[in-house]
């Protein structure tokens, strides 16, 4: 890792422990990153089953790479690079061609946790569902790389530098990607404000 003294993040330390044979540390990493990875993949491919399958592959690759792991970058950068790579491949292979058909199914599978406390009326639930579907369609309409950049920026709250590393491009390219993506989303979603 160059001459600069870069403090290892905790996740990288855990991964180094996994490398030394401590499988409990892998469990800690899985517990910590399972949800963000699955959610990122779900928003990318918009299919719950495919997203979970890809997330399994992500963690399987992390486990397989334990012997050769070197903390050259932030652990989450590495993790999301694997996840993004798999998601983009999956989208290109058309593995989730039926994702759009399954949107309604997935919506019905959504938990009611965000609205359950207020006991919304049927009308409110339908409005909420319609908004969610509109956002999903707007995100699905973005080019794949823009989509990945927006999801990492919005939901994972990643910095431009980290997104750039995940997508293997420059920071200015990320800003440009994000600006174009948000401009497209603005055109589609501004009326929802």
């Amino acid at each position: 890792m160059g001459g600069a003294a870069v403090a290892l993040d905790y996740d990288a330390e855990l991964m180094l422990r996994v490398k030394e044979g401590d499988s409990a540390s892998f469990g800690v990493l899985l517990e910590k990153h399972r949800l963000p990875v699955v959610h990122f993949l779900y928003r990318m491919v918009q299919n719950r089953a495919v997203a979970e399958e890809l997330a399994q592959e992500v963690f399987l690759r992390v486990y397989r790479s334990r012997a050769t792991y070197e903390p050259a970058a932030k652990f989450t950068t590495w993790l999301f690079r694997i996840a993004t790579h798999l998601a983009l491949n999956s989208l290109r292979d058309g593995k989730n061609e039926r994702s759009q058909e399954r949107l309604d199914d997935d919506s019905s599978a959504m938990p009611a946790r965000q609205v359950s406390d207020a006991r919304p009326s049927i009308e409110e639930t339908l409005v909420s569902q319609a908004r969610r579907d509109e956002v999903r369609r707007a995100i699905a309409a973005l080019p794949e790389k823009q989509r990945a950049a927006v999801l990492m920026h919005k939901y994972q709250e990643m910095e431009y530098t980290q997104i750039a590393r995940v997508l293997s491009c420059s920071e200015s390219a990320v800003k440009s990607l994000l600006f174009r993506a948000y401009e497209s989303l603005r055109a589609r979603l501004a009326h929802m404000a």
Partner: protein
Amino acid sequence: MKCPRETQESAEVLLAYGACKLDAESTAALEKHMAVCPTCRESARGLRAAWEALDAFEAPPVSPDFDRRLYRRIEREVSWWDLLLRPFRWFPVRQGLPIAAAAGVMVFAGVMLYRPAVPPAPQQDAAQAQVDALRPEQVEDALDDMEMLREFSHLMRPDAGEAKKM
């Protein structure tokens, strides 16, 4: 404040404003500018609206058996590896190493000690033996034949006589 759309950092400033991540000082400056610049106002407010609209996109919870499935896959991979190594397992490493080393030494010694009784004659020697076996009369006859053939072919060439006349 200069219009952000005329500068290099326009995307960054407007994005940061849209994502509510612009510091207070820059926000105040941008909002002051937005009051007189309808293009920036529309862009910044639109980006903010899009940013907030994205909150509606909730992801479903992860399946309860996610970890179990993952660990089963990991286990399966490990068992495949075991299966590949199984044929070599019967040979305990601690006992096997000296035996393998001894076998190696024996093979090496065998190769070094093996000397064939009659080494194969090189090809050059065989050719020399053929020349030595010829009798002088045979050689003389062969040379006479070659001379006769040479003269015969010289006479048979039609331009040979012409050339002599000239």
